[in-house]
């Protein structure tokens, strides 16, 4: 069904609760109000259309043309189409109802809004999820009148809210150090004996304020700031950002530049998936696989360094193009590297699907059913391993994916094994794509000049990162700096799913289930305090992992 007919259908069913709507290419914007938001979302949900991709809030400030409001944007996505409900609330009393009962994954985004924008969302838990506990009360960093001085001057710190535990439950806190997201994470797992009965997450221990920082830097500076959101998928962040800015300023990027960008995207996916394979194997206690897959991953890291000059933050993007070409000699070394990796990947696919002891940790474990994955807004390989075909490269091709179509990789087994198989098969697809792009590289320029001031407007830029859909909302007021850059990273979407599937599983399976969504548990050791009715034992993540391994070594007794 085409996007237009979809939009007509949506407009028809939400009409009573929407005061105005506009469509532009792949976008439908519907104005509604705080009172009518819930019925409007209910009407949209009744169509079973799309999933909630992000909630953006921006403060229009109090300066002249603005009427002093905060605008909330609820973005629902389905393939290339984005349907947005826009709600304006006054700055003095910004309150909206929660859409959590309709869309479970909304709660995480609403909590972010409440803490960073000061929007009162009825019915949210008191505990902070994003800002640190010692952040002053009633100071909201994403408001336009926020200054560091005002925050520092407010000494009033809210009371720390502990976990709301029912008497008699054992809560196992894990974290907070966890390097996968923009923010490290802390988990609280309530257990009944061996079985997890409830899981909660706390993020933001090292909230770096990148979204706020972006408002204070030029359009060029921000390429490098965005690149530093993630050390694994650095290029895709910069790419999502530059694609958005280029479309705002109407810059047509030459096809060769787009192809180079795409090759880097795919190479990044290869390094990210191989990294994940090692980390996941390590969590299962299969360190041999961990060592070998990381050894082989060096091939792609060396290639990235050879092509760009940097190993991690390749910084190949410019506004309007790329810095480096991939020419004959470089292309040949990429081809050689891919041949080697393809052989190794075939080997790894065989191992993860045949190794008996490994399969005991993955087969039938951590199932996210198709319906759960769909409803919870799961994305990326995690969704595709549950048969939900969400892949922006396929559904809404951008850059060179238009000329070099991606074959979707799906698996309907829903368990951890499927997540291994999907990611490994995606590696083969990436090898194929890169080879094809190298063989049919369009000729031409590498970059065109881009203006320093970006015309007024807003844009949504969505790309497929290694972990799933990466969502950028960029708004310009016509100046040399952005007015708002909202970033929703893929892992944030997938946490909702992992928290619900964790329930009912054995504690020993938790490390594997969490690692299954690829939140990159590689870098740090985390401290876990195991609280048993008042007494405290300290566990590190390492201990929990060891516990998982020994649990299965002992026959799962």
């Amino acid at each position: 069904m085409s996007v237009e007919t979809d939009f007509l259908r949506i407009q028809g069913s939400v009409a009573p609760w929407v005061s105005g709507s506009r469509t532009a290419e792949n976008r439908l914007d519907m104005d509604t109000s705080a009172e009518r938001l819930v019925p409007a979302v209910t009407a949209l949900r009744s169509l079973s259309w799309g999933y909630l991709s992000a909630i953006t809030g921006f403060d229009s400030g109090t300066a002249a043309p603005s009427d002093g409001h905060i605008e909330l944007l609820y973005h629902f996505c389905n393939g290339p189409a984005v349907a947005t409900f826009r709600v304006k609330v006054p700055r003095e009393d910004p309150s909206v109802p929660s859409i959590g009962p309709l869309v479970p994954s909304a709660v995480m985004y609403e909590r972010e809004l409440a803490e960073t924008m000061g929007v009162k969302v009825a019915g949210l838990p008191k505990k902070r999820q994003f800002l640190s506990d010692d952040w002053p009360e009633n100071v909201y960093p994403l408001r336009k009148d926020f200054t560091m001085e005002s925050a520092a001057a407010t000494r009033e710190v809210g009371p720390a809210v502990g976990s709301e535990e029912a008497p008699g439950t054992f809560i196992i806190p894990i974290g907070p150090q966890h390097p996968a997201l923009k923010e490290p994470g802390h988990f609280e797992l309530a257990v009944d004996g061996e079985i997890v009965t409830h899981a909660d997450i706390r993020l933001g221990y090292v909230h770096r304020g990148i979204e706020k920082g972006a408002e204070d830097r030029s359009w060029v500076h921000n390429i490098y700031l965005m690149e530093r959101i993630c050390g694994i998928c650095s290029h895709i962040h910069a790419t999502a950002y530059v694609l958005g800015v280029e479309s705002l300023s109407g810059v047509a990027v030459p096809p060769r530049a787009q192809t180079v960008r795409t090759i880097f995207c795919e190479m990044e996916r290869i390094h990210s998936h191989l990294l994940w394979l090692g980390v996941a194997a390590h969590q299962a206690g299969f360190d041999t696989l961990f060592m070998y897959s990381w050894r082989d991953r060096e091939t792609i890291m060396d290639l990235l360094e050879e092509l760009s000059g940097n190993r991690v933050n390749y910084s190949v993007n410019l506004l309007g193009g790329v810095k480096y070409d991939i020419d004959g000699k470089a292309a040949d070394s990429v081809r050689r590297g891919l041949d080697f990796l393809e052989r190794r990947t075939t080997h790894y696919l065989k191992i993860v699907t045949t190794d008996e002891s490994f399969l005991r940790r993955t087969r039938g474990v951590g199932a996210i059913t198709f319906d759960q994955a769909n409803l919870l807004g799961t994305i990326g390989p995690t969704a595709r391993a549950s048969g939900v075909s969400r892949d922006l490269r396929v559904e809404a091709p951008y850059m060179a994916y238009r000329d070099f179509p991606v074959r979707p990789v799906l698996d309907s087994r829903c368990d951890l094994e499927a997540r291994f198989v999907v990611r490994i098969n995606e590696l083969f697809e990436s090898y194929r794509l890169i080879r094809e792009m190298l063989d049919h590289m369009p000729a031409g320029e590498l970059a065109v000049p881009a203006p320093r001031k970006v015309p007024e407007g807003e844009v949504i830029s969505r790309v497929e990162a290694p972990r799933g859909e990466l969502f950028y909302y960029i708004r310009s007021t016509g100046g040399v700096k952005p007015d708002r850059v909202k970033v929703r990273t893929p892992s944030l979407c997938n946490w909702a799913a992992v928290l619900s599937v964790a329930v009912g599983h054995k504690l020993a399976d938790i490390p594997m289930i969490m690692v299954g969504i690829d939140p990159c548990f590689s870098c740090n050791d985390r401290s876990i305090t195991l609280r048993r009715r008042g007494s405290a034992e300290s566990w590190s993540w390492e201990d929990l992992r060891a516990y998982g391994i020994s649990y299965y070594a002992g026959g799962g007794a």
Partner: protein
Amino acid sequence: MLNDVFVSLFKRPFTERYPYAVKPAPDRLRGKLLWDESKCDGCKLCVRDCPAKAIEIEVVDRAAKKYLYHYRIDRCIYCAQCVESCKEGALTMSNTLYHLASADKAAFTEIYGAKGTGACSEEAAEK
């Protein structure tokens, strides 16, 4: 897998013996920023676009196009935006000077042009 392990037993270690054996860096490696005084016209585009505030230009004599180029190695994130922004081709990044760690803070500030050396070639920078 066992086969894999067995084969690996007879391979030489994969780990590189850095710093005893230093692998040649790729051509495009982005090391220390080098400035060519003879090409620079003092437009300061590099200063404006540097995301890390690593560059400052001190004007000695604008008519004679004499500048001092302050480069903060400890701030630089090796993004090469300055190299792209410079329309005069005055900036390059060295692929040999990348051992830049130091226990001495002074080593992190390079002032090109100060010694009256003119163009900052790789050899001059090494001194």
